[in-house]
């Protein structure tokens, strides 16, 4: 589907920081809405007062993925009065590796020639042909980077090794389409961790719930609230006080997962969850199995659960589950609660 893929890239922009300390949005093609420009300026590490330099960050805003590569201007260069610059690519798909590679090439071109024209040529060739020459004696091909690889690129084993059996809380929250907020002061660790979480619900392959880099501003918070359930990453520690924003709060540096009061009864866990937890841990601890295999194991178990749920719906008319039908099976209350909410999440509930 290369034709549709080519239309996935939406725009490219350049942000520069000059010797006066100003950070300016100097170029964009074809266009970027002012709201998105504001958001991107905020995400770009050049505007932040703390002088932290992040080479590559990505995030999600208003159904658009943005990828920002920042570079420090080094001699020899044709750019004068510029100390740092960032290249921003917005696209519709989630593929950090692809866009990281592309923006690296664009960065080098820009730094060498000092004019966005050359960079734009490269961008247009990628846009139209899906390939562009990189100055490292190779070429960048879009089809080298497919989306499944991106989805599986995160390390589920790291997550399990950090949280152990508590990983099942994250699993439950994701399955029930709850709101998860993750805090870590370093953006790179945050991105690493959050990108793998949607893989826990592999059957949905829905990465649009992922908002790995959010600031506590009204614009961005309104945007994530549009999704019923989301995985949001924050670098601001104040977010732990914003209990209106999350059902599950993950404090990554401390390794603590907390469930908020309002969601406790929906997230009640029983034997089923224990089984799943043990499965996850066992699978991850096995050194022979790779990350993708762990995810595959988990997705098989999920498929079991879902098929079980589907079997339950057969007994009802309209192939939708009702609460009474569920109660007839006399599951233990935690499992019953979980299945009820899961049915709602999978749109199997009778309205």
């Amino acid at each position, binding site marked *: 589907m290369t034709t549709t893929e080519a239309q996935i890239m939406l725009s490219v922009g350049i942000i520069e920081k000059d010797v006066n300390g100003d950070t300016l949005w100097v170029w964009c093609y074809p266009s970027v809405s002012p709201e998105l420009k504001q958001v991107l300026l905020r995400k770009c590490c050049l505007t932040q007062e703390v002088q932290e330099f992040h080479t590559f960050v990505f995030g999600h805003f208003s159904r658009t993925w943005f990828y920002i590569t920042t570079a420090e201007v080094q001699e020899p260069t044709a750019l004068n009065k510029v100390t740092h610059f960032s290249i921003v690519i917005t696209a519709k798909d989630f593929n950090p590796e692809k866009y990281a590679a592309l923006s690296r090439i664009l960065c080098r071109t820009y730094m060498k020639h000092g004019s*966005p024209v050359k960079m734009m040529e490269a961008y247009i060739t990628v846009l139209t042909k899906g390939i562009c020459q990189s100055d490292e004696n190779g070429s960048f091909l879009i089809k080298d980077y497919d989306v499944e690889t991106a989805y599986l690129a995160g390390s589920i084993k790291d997550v399990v090794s950090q949280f152990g059996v508590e990983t099942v809380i994250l699993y439950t929250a994701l399955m029930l*389409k709850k709101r998860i907020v993750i805090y870590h002061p370093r953006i790179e660790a945050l991105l690493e961790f959050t990108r793998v979480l949607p893989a826990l619900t592999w059957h949905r392959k829905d990465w649009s719930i992922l908002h790995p880099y959010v600031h506590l501003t009204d614009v961005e918070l309104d945007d994530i609230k549009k999704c019923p359930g989301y995985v949001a990453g924050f670098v601001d520690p104040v977010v732990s006080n914003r209990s209106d924003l999350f059902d599950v709060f993950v404090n990554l540096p401390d390794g603590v997962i907390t469930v908020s009061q309002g969601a406790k009864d929906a997230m009640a866990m029983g034997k089923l969850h224990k089984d799943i937890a043990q499965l996850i841990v066992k699978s991850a601890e096995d050194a022979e199995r790779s990350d993708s295999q762990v995810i595959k194991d988990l997705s098989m178990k999920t498929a079991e659960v879902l098929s079980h749920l589907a079997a339950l719906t057969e007994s009802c008319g309209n192939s939708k589950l009702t609460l009474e039908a569920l109660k007839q099976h006399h599951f233990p209350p935690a499992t019953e609660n979980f299945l009820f909410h899961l049915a709602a999440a999978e749109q199997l*509930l009778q309205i």
Partner: protein
Amino acid sequence: MEEVDKILIHALRHVGTEVGEDVDSLKRFTSDLIVEAVVRCVRVIEPGLGGALPTSLPPGMSARFRVGMSLAQACQDVGYKGEIGYQTFLYSNEPEIRSLLMFLVEKLPRERAEASDQSAGKSAVLQRSIAAAIRTQLAASWVPPNCRLPLHCETQNHGALHSFHVQPLTFPHCTKTSDKKHLKGLPPCSLHFTRNACAPCSDRTGSVLSEVQDYHRDVLPPVTAQASSQASAVASILERHAAELSAAQEWDNDWKSQGLLSRLTPQEYRSRKSSRLRKRIEEQLRSAAAPSPESAFGVSRSASELTELLQTFKGSAPSAHVLTKGTHFTHAQKFTFTQEGAATSPVLAGRQSEGDAQIRQQEELSSLQQQFQQLCSEVDQLAADIKHLNVTNAQVLDELKQRELRNAEEEEKMQVKKKTADLLPDAENNLLKLQSLVEGGAKRVVNLASQWEKHRAPLIEEYRRLKEICSNKDLESNRKLSEIKSLHEKIRVSTEEAKKKEDTYKQLVTELERLPKDASRSAYTQRILEIVGNIKKQKEEITKILSDTKELQKEINNLTGKLDRTFAVTDELVFKDAKKDESVRKAYKYLAALHENCNQLIQTIEDTGTILREIRDLEEQIEAENGNKTVSNLERILDDYKAIRQENAALAAKVREG
């Protein structure tokens, strides 16, 4: 000399010596007077020493001699370093007496007035008077009410007590908001800080409504009449003044330290500050109001109080809120409590017929319990329904959203497919055309980009250049701001110093007025300054003379040297020729004689000068000695000697007889 004498006489009179009115210089002091003065001074300086000494000379010569010796000893003990003996008192001469008396008068302990260690200054004076008044009031003994005199009523009556009660006052000075001169240093917006009066006075633009002006002019009573009682009038004015003063000072400090740095106008600075404060308050309220169990352990009791307060703001909590949050058990608790309340009231009502009432109560109880059970079950049912509805609602919304998204995507795909389908019949050509279109489009876009770059690059350059200039100006203005700050600081310091100096000046003026006027210090200071001036002039003249003398001496040395050298040369020259020629020999002899005579002349002149100097010295010595009254003293000594010899003879005769 007269002034010195006058000062000495004044000091001696102060010590207690009876110096006659006509005695105005030390020349007129008699021995008796001298002795009395010295003894009194010594008594004041060291009471132990002076106690043994008599103030007048006894008649007997030997006694006088003894008294003189002991006085001399006493003076030496006190510390007088000069030559002193009985002769100083019995056969006095002016210079010695003057030096002794000066020494003693200086040794007199200075009386420091109590006034000098009291710091003056209006507030200190006020405090001292307040303290004195309170002291007298405390000293007055308490008298029972019936016996109170009007004198006591003021301080001891109950009615005299007024608590410090403050009332808000209306000042009409907001009419002058447009006239900045009246508000020197008080920015117009600060009036909004004062509690009541001025907010309705001025509309947005700060100008005053005419009706308000009329009100202020015609209707508003003066400030002293605005308060309900006299006591609170004063208190209210003080309070108002203190509040305004502190607000103005606060604003001044804040503006000088932070406001100038922020480079905003005062209004902007103020609005920014208020919005920042509001945001902080919002944050605090939000974090305290939201029940967050994770952070609950760290939150102090005050937060829970705050939540209770906020609950009261919410008013009666809607029952739905209660239902969703509570569990079965808490509801049961609540209902049992209300039931108990309902049960207690019939108990309190009447104890009329106990048995009857008991049955009725039982019936009521059972019916209420039934009702309660029913309500409980209804509540449970409702809670479950709500939960179910929430969940289904979420599901439906989710579905809706997903469908919308899918719709949008499918529409896009459909558009693309439609266009492709249109082009499909002539596939090959269209493909080529499309490719060329795309390439052409790409080239055009790149072309446009380069054109745009031609425009953009200089603009960005310009922008950056101007920004640099701006930041340089920023540095400049920062520097100026810091200068302004230091100037403010200097102004403050100078005003403080000026105030202090004014205070000390006032204090010194009052002290000066308080000092006794008998010894006119200004006359003394005048004379001292004159003398100093004279001495300076004399010093100048002396230096001039010295330099002249030096010049002369140098010249003399020069000339002598020249003379010697010339003579030596001439002598050589002539002597050489003298061997041969007779006339030259004669000339040589004349030369030698001339030299000799001139030398003698010079010598004589020098001797004359020396002798003149000696004469002058001797004349001075004669004058000094003449002042010493030596002759009269000598006569007196001889007389006294004779008297002592007579006394000795008389005493010897007495001893021989007895």
